[in-house]
């Protein structure tokens, strides 16, 4: 028994000394584990989301912008979103009554971070499973799509 302990000690000593002989890692080995705080329930109509859009003021609906937004929507978004039915992603009718304009644009422009860090977006991912795709739109294009969304009302 004593022998075993001795042998173990010697081996450990050697292993340790051998290890400390090696090069010292001068770089961080990777991102440190972060302890994430649970986000409390947020009122979605106060949640601006995470991304480049911090604050936006809406005026009267601009029909020219709506038309351009609709065209963009058809080519970049309609493969996954319909107006009035759940598809790959949620139905969009009435979305501007459920979400802030900033949140909508950030979800379009910064979906990877949104579905990873924004509580509402995380919930949506859990429900729909397919992550919101980044369609590489510009802020201006996202704004046009938002204008189009403002015209989509829930059917009475």
């Amino acid at each position, binding site marked *: 028994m004593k022998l*075993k302990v001795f042998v173990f000690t010697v081996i450990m000593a*050697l292993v340790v000394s051998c290890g400390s002989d*090696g090069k010292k890692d001068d*770089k961080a080995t990777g991102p440190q584990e972060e302890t994430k705080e649970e986000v409390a329930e947020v009122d979605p109509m106060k949640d601006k989301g995470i991304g480049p859009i911090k604050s936006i003021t809406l005026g009267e609906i601009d029909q020219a912008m709506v038309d351009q937004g609709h065209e963009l929507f058809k080519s*970049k978004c309609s*493969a996954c979103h319909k107006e009035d039915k759940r598809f790959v992603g949620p139905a969009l009718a009435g979305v501007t009554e459920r979400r802030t304009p900033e949140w909508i644009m950030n979800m379009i422009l910064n979906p990877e971070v949104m579905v990873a860090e924004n509580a509402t977006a995380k919930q949506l991912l859990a429900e729909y499973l*397919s*992550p919101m795709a980044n369609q*590489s739109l510009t802020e201006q294009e996202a704004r046009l799509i938002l204008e189009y969304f403002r015209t989509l009302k829930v059917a009475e």
Partner: protein
Amino acid sequence: MKTIFKTLLAFTIVSTVLSSCGNGGDKGKHGALSGSAAEKVYVAPGEHDEFYAFVSGGFSGQLAVYGLPSGRLFKVIPVFSVDAEKAYGFNEETKPMLNTSHGFIPWDDSHHPDISQTAGELDGRYVFINGNNTPRIAKIDLTTFETAEIIEIPNSAGNHSSSFVTENTEYVVAGTRFSVPYPQRDMPIKEYKGNFKGALTFISVDPKDGAMDIKFQIMMPGFNYDLSHPGRGKSHGWFFFTTYNTEEANSLLEVNASQNDKDFIAAINWKKIEEYVNNGGGTKAPTNYAHNVYSDETHSATSTMKKEVLIVNPADVPGAIYFLPTPKSPHGCDVDPSGEYIIGNGKLAAELTAHSFTKMLAAIEGKKFDGEAYGIPILKYEEILAGAVKQPGLGPLHTEFDGKGYAYTTFFISSEVVKWKLGTWEVVDRKPTYYSPGHLMIPGGNSRKPFGKYTLVMNKITKDRYLPTGPEVTQSAQLYDITGDKMELLSDFPTIGEPHYAAGIPAELIKERSKKIFKLEENKHKYVTKSEAEGKVVRNGNEVHIYMTMIRSHFSPDNIEGVQVGDKVYFHVTNLEQDYDVPHGISMIGAQTSELLIMPGQTETFVWEPKQVGVWPFYCTDFCSALHQEMQGYVRVSPKGSNVPITFTLDGDTIGAE
């Protein structure tokens, strides 16, 4: 007894630990296994390599992209051979890339990549590479890492002394290894001498869009033109080609082409010939060769047959071409960064030959000739010789330069790389290679500005270096650190096919320009479907065209009916994604072609000719998302003449019926 056993066991374990610990510091004995070598090639997970290395695939016909110093393989770019993985040569869009005057040729032997240059320095726009067997030159666009253009070389055979660029990429050259009858005709082989010609082809490269065009072909004597390199700096405007078989043998060349004590390096003053041609010189001759161009806008290639080529007869441009006698059957023809020294790697010679460009000009001026060959003056060897590296090794093949006054030569027979000094011609170091190297590469080593940190040596034989894989074993590349007085072998790694040559470049010159997606709005493919609503299926006789889209994670339409046995069904599939690294694939049961692998914003097409009635599935072949396994669809195939109408739906709704 038990105690003794335990003691022995303990002793053994301790010894093992001790000895393994001790050996870690014994760098000399284990060479590449030493700690410092490992550190030099270690690129931590998530970090990028310092250099790109474009390593030719030889008989694979492709070009592999590795990182240095890690030796990690990033991509195999399909160039001259079909590639089922990327549908190259299988989809309708890329089939024209492999068209030639002999028809569709699905394979070639790719040899010598060279990166485009501006003012004698690497500019990272394109890599050129030659197809040896059915002579072709390809241009790879380094924003997409895809083959953008292939031009066939007429009147050529064994396109080997290719594809090297001039200082400002004015030209990429293609020299024939085998001389052939010119013009091609039915004649006795034994009448080779004097009747066979060796074409040296100068392909202009448009400075704006890189478009290639054969400017002229010089119809040289019927020797074998082995390798070439451009003049640079003071010798810019000249091009140098090694020759062998100046004996003009047509059989048993290993004996009959090794008779002459010296063969030649052909020095071509291309500026002079260009001027001659620009002033109306040369003869327009009928010919037939393919020029294939791929467009990133239409995502499709076109092939055009060209019917004429401009031939230059050396006798008509006196003073433009000279022969530099060079011992014996030289392979590599290498010009140092200053442009002064032209190195002949006489593969059967006892020494390495360095000619002086300055002395060459003086010898031409002073008419120091030693006869002529087919009217081309042969300069006197002693008049042009700068020096020779004595007893450097056996079988020199190729030399590159570090920009610090040293040259590095591979020796095939003695399996080594030898470092020597320009000007004094002294050997300063030699290291073994494993085994039998062909070429070596220093990033920028064929330019005015080499990045003399590493050399990559490419070996033909590996035998015992790796785990055996049956009779066929890998070829390899070996990386040496060349920053010190002595070279240090850092690592070796297996390669794709046979690496004949490579071109290296600092990653920073390329990586920022690497394309991430194709913009959907810029897609001009004839059969593009830019939104799901535009999807449709159109019958035209027995042709059925499916306009399909894909996005995470469904096809649209995904239920198609009305297809019949005997139809020719074209799947034109557009990837609607606009995010980086989200390709989708598609494959169809029974399709006699490959999958498609479609990048964001791109359209590709495959053809399916259903032979059996039934309902047949297709699916996404590239794991695209958590719901990838759900990305699938069905085509209903009815008997020929059936009255089942064409329908195309997604989730029960007809596409486009909004």
